[in-house]
């Protein structure tokens, strides 16, 4: 996979922690999944089974899931944007820190392509950071997808590819979790009148 494409996948994922508009965040996720899909198709060229699986994954992640997210967004309109826990600059600095830590701490994983290895690990950490740092339930849901895209980046780079049973199984699980998370997002919005998870902090010991 070209280093420009890998860099684009990283930047698109990192941008999700910065943007405030949900529609922009969905577009970023769709673009990231599309770039990942293009990379997977490129790596699978010449292997018809893998190419088919990569196409299915691309269609689901870059089209079906973003469409589902758009529906959820339309059904959970916010009167005003949820106030962020920290400014965009602080969040961006945090993401940069996470990416640097990933690059510094993770030893070679055996792929022989340090950029892809570091980007994959950084995306998983960025996904976790999005879920922790963003207050809207909807944005936390996007964090799950960014983390999963990080894993996918490494998975498609494995020589010979992962088994399509695993790839399709993981895709099914992701679709299931995103669907349930989308249902939660709607229900939380219905219950609280907003998707702000700061209001969901009643359970303490």
């Amino acid at each position, binding site marked *: 996979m070209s280093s420009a494409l890998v860099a684009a996948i990283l930047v698109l994922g990192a941008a999700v922690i910065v943007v405030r508009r949900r529609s922009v965040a969905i577009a970023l996720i769709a673009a990231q999944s599309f770039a990942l899909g293009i990379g997977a198709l490129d790596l699978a060229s010449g292997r018809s089974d893998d190419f088919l699986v990569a196409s299915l994954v691309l269609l689901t992640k870059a089209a079906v899931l973003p469409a589902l997210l758009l529906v959820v967004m339309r059904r959970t309109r916010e009167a005003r944007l949820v106030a962020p826990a920290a400014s965009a600059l602080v969040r961006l600095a945090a993401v940069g820190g996470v990416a640097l830590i990933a690059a510094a701490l993770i030893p070679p994983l055996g792929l022989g392509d340090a950029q892809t290895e570091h980007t994959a690990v950084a995306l*998983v950490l960025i996904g976790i950071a999005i879920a922790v740092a963003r207050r809207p339930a909807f944005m*936390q849901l996007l964090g799950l997808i960014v983390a999963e895209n990080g894993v996918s980046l490494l998975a498609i780079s494995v020589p010979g590819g*992962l088994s399509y049973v695993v790839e399709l199984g993981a895709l099914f699980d992701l679709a299931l979790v995103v669907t349930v998370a989308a249902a939660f997002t709607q229900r939380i919005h219905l219950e609280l009148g907003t998707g702000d998870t700061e209001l969901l902090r009643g359970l303490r010991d």
Partner: protein
Amino acid sequence: MTELVGTLAWVVPALPLACAAALQATRTPVQADRVNVVTAVATAAVALALSATLLARGGDAPLRGELYLVDGASGVFVGLIAVIGLCSALVSPAYLRTAGRSWFSAGRSRHWYYAALYFFWGALLAVPIAGNLALAWLLVEATTAASALLIAFTGRRHALEAGWKYLVLTTLGLSVALLGIVVLALGLSREGHQGLAALDWHALERTASGLPERPTVVAFVLILAGLATKIGWAPVHNWLPDAHSEAPAPISALLSAALLPTVVLVAWRVKATLDVAVGGGTAGALFLAFGLASLIVAIPFLWRALPWKRLLAYSSLEHMGVIALGIGFGTPLAIAGVVIHVAGHGLAKALGFYAALPLLRSDPETARRAPKGVLGPSPRTAAAMGVSLAALGGLPPSPLFVSELLILLGGIAAGETAVVAVAALALSLGFLGLLHALLEGVVGPPAERRHRPRSRTERPIAIMTAALGAGLLALTAATVLLPGSAFVDRLAGGAL
């Protein structure tokens, strides 16, 4: 024999899915509850048949198929999940009759509940049978969606908070575990082992010694850290007390008594297969670290006057820590203790959660504060709570007394005296905390004068206490058979 086991290995996880479909065809709540009884008994019967067949094989080598691997551990876990699933399904109608508000519309709430319950149960039954690391991961991840819906079933604010936290944290944790599996697959691919079969448990065990050490250690740490989130080991346990306390009681029982130990089994199999590549010391040390951290974090909460289900949740944290210690020690004595502990904890903890049904019905305030003096107004509920707490605290003749003793002795045999000393101290403090809860919550003076519930409403919990209490005593009696048996030696040897 092999053919029968092979057939059962496919039927056991598939049957609950068929049952879920059958339940969707029911038209009235009464009809759904009746069909649920039939389908639950059928599912449990088939699963118990598989469990009994596997346990009867003793220390024989595991049986393998294309996607399954069944051994003695599979027998123990499938049996446990069958029993807990059956009990949870049987007490569910009583919960649903008094549940009140639900996330779903009144007309469909039972259908959604049963669909999610059977999907969850089916995925759980499949995990101990899965013959492949990636497949086991897929199944563990598949439990998340269904169980999250069940945790938030009431649709109330606290239930939504607990369900959402569980969904997000465990999904992220499992993403980390999947990253570890991909790193492992990368190492295997470099050694010429590709495809799904490379991640089969027995294939991994054979090829592990040839894997590069550093990436394999990274893979192992990522897999274990990710699974720890789902198990609820400290310090990644934040979702556990909330989910256990807010879920419907039958689901709390399934989460604590079946889900947590089942994911521990996956972690145990990862350790058994990758020990050679990671270094037995490193793998064991990680288990010991998670075990001690869980024990130490749980103790202060066991001393506090917590609502009943929250107290049980922190007790789960403690007991998952004990199981981690046993696996970390890895000696035959400790492994015998682990097997008994998994089964004993499951039965005792499930009984405790089932006792929450009549407790919350007679005194709904106990959802938010510690119960007090339940014995006077609700003697049968108090008996269930007492049996559960005494067993969980490790009061003889509880099987957990024997299992904890075996694990500690196993630790001494492994030369981990310092860890054993800290664990023994933590277990003693945990016992005192639960004893305090027993004295204050069950036999102490009641908080206020309450109406005595009709004896009819307490009859199901009395039956459950008798059945699960008998199971606990039978388990204590069976403990004499385990240490030194070929069954335990095979598990301790880690051969898959």
